[in-house]
């Protein structure tokens, strides 16, 4: 017992001496900074994007913590998503609104192969960027043709309003991506991004208010055959002890197409429904009994393919 104690004492002394050495070695020799992108790479990332980016393209960075390249970007280059590592073929494809291209900002050219394969991409062009690489690509993932994408087309909604059954309060369209419903920061319907079952996607922020129904109406043009709808809570909602669910109802020309309660759980809900022929109008109705931190988000689309 005494021997064991002496051995532990010596081991602890050794560890203490080692810890001093490791502290010196790590913090004084630049080891703590070793994985940062160098300035040339950052500038090149920005230069390539500034030259090649077209409105609607999406930018994904492999590194979500060294964002100094943002400092050199021109205005209008957005959005930039920081979750390439967890992205999947489907999640990336679902973020696209149409024929958008993808820019992948990679720390080295060594990871190109991995992402091209994982995300099922067709590489359009690659650019050397210092020690890193920028890949311009499009996804090969087959998706149906989308006639309406809620996140992309939120600005095209016919109407966004709160209704209490008797009177309604219209939300004000402040941009092509946002309807502001009051002076409160959270009280809007508009484009955001959120994690859907662990994957970041474009979505519509739609915070319901208790005692009222938030109604978002889209006019449907052409043939609309099927609705795909996903909903859940943004991660910022989980700071709350409020467990109130959000009631979701989707009506086609006033007739209920989908109706469910979205509970306050970590996972998101995915639904789909056939849309009756000649439907002119689709309304998404959201309600809650307690609106504290109901950071509700949804996305989805309408397709003319079954």
């Amino acid at each position: 017992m005494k021997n064991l104690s002496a051995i532990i004492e010596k081991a602890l002394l050794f560890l203490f001496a080692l810890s001093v050495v490791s502290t010196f070695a790590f913090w004084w020799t630049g080891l703590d900074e070793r994985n940062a992108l160098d300035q040339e790479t950052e500038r090149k990332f920005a230069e390539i994007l500034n030259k090649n980016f077209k409105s609607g393209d999406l930018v994904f960075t492999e590194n979500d913590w060294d964002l100094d390249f943002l400092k050199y970007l021109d205005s209008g280059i957005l959005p930039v998503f920081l979750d390439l590592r967890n992205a999947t073929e489907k999640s990336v494809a679902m973020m696209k609104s149409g024929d958008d291209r993808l820019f992948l900002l990679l720390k080295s050219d060594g990871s190109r192969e991995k992402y091209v394969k994982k995300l099922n991409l067709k590489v359009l062009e690659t650019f050397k960027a210092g020690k890193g690489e920028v890949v311009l690509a499009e996804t090969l993932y087959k998706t149906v043709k989308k006639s309406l994408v809620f996140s992309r087309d939120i600005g095209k909604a016919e109407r966004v309003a709160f209704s209490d059954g008797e009177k309604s309060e219209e939300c004000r369209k402040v941009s092509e991506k946002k309807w502001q419903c009051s002076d409160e920061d959270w009280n809007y319907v508009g484009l955001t991004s959120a994690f859907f079952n662990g994957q970041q996607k474009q979505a519509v922020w739609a915070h319901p208010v208790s005692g009222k129904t938030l109604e978002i109406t889209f006019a449907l043009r052409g043939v609309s055959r099927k609705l795909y709808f996903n909903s859940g809570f943004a991660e910022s909602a989980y700071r709350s002890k409020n467990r109130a669910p959000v009631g979701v109802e989707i009506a086609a020309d006033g007739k209920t197409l989908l109706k469910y309660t979205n509970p306050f759980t970590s996972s998101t809900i995915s639904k789909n429904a056939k849309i009756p022929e000649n439907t002119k109008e689709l309304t998404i109705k959201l309600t809650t009994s307690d609106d504290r931190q109901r950071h509700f988000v949804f996305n989805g689309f309408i397709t003319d393919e079954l």
Partner: protein
Amino acid sequence: MNFKNHFEKIDFLLAGATAVFIFLMIFLTGSAIGFVRDEGFYMKAAGNMADWYESIGTNISNGEFAKIFSKKEIDRYFNYNSEHPPFMKELFGLSQFIFTRKLGIMSAPESARLVAAVFAALTALMIYLFGLIFFSRTTAVASPLLFFTMPHIFFHSHLACFDMPILFFWSSTFILYMICLKTKKTSVHAVTAVFFAFAMATKHNVLFIPIVLFVSWLFFYIFSYRKEADKSGLAGFFRAIPKVFWFMAVISLPLYFLIWPRMWFNTADRLMTYAEFHGKHVNYLNYYFGTPLKNGPFPFSFPWAMTFFTTPTPQLVCFFAGIFYFCRDLFKSGKTCEKEASLAMITGSLFPIFLIAWPSIPIFGGIKHWFTGYPLMLTAGVFMIEESAKKLIKTDNCRKKLFVPVLFAAALVSLIQPDIKFAKRGAAFYNELIGGAQGAAEARMQRNFWGYDMIDLAGTLNSEAPKNAKLYIMSSYEGLNQNSFRFMQAAGIIRSDIRATNTLNEADFALFFYEKQNEFILNSIAYEFGTIRPLAVSSTDSVFYSALFRREK
């Protein structure tokens, strides 16, 4: 553990110098650290307290003594932030009353942070005394220095919050209990109870202390104390209970109520509301190795791993050494009261971590919620290292004398670089075992906490913003809140004409505080402002923490 040393003349010099050094180091570097969200609430409460002190003067001069403690008056000044006891807020308010309102020599936020610096000095003093009395003079000198060179501790020591004061009270109460066990003097037991009343009036954490200490005592009673003369049977049991527990009931509780006037009225209801607030506390979402901890049960490993990765490695080794020292004492000691003292030290060190590790307990944020026992295990660990080092060099006295101070000095010097790097954002520090800030970010750990990190952005904001510009402060998420913004203006950190808004589409400038769960706000700002190019960025080792944006459309 036994009393080893007395307080001698030289200790006045050493303890005093240590406390003054820590006080100056904390107080003079205050302007480098932004105001966390909680400080906004407590500084506002401090203003109410200062108003109360003013009103006491007015009421006395009007001869209205009864009015001072009337329900109306008490509710007026004490109802705000009633989810926390008032002792620290009373001190922040007193400091504001004296140094800001009467003497006019510092701003209101500075006066609150002055109290924080005083508590840092008291903590240094407490560690010195603990080190001296139970271990050695070398330990007494080295321990406070090693304690305050932990970046998280250095950071929290600046804040006008309750976390460092409750650390002081938590560790001191355990030390005093140990002295109670050893001296049996009634006066020591009574002083401990008085001290404990102030601890309770600081933060609710310490309410666990009598419970865990009594359970520990009961264990030793069942297996040992009851065999002593006069301590068996029911009467013997009550006689055997250490006086400090009785005093906690008859001294601590009344004094606690005396310090908290709001509890004089509607007592049962208000106590219930207070208990309910903490019993049903919200969980703060934390990223932990890439997993957002949204709802319980939470991983048992969370506070252990966070302690492991957020403590600089020399101090981390001391933690292990300290726990080993207490455990060895527990099993080696012949006397029951010494065993109980060792168990009390282990409990004081580890119970706060165990508590947060419990899967159903919400995660309240960073390490500040379980660091209350760090001084105990650190100090014992420093002594353990000192003893081992002395044993290693057996022959040469001169070398033996030099070896230990050189070893601790080397540890302190090695910490200068990380301490400087994280001086402005100690809450974001991770050690080399996870790869520092970069490694933690790569592992997707929570990057920072409490929306304070904007000192690096303030200069650009002040120089670029036109008069009366509106600044989005991300208050609905983990950004600044309106109070902390207001106090940053009062402290001269943000220009006084700049207005805070929580509505992005009316803002001219926007602050963005990075947390993984708030990543979407980066693109919300970009969509609204027409650019994702920041005007200024705050980072360490290229890890992005917060940024300032300017509207371009």
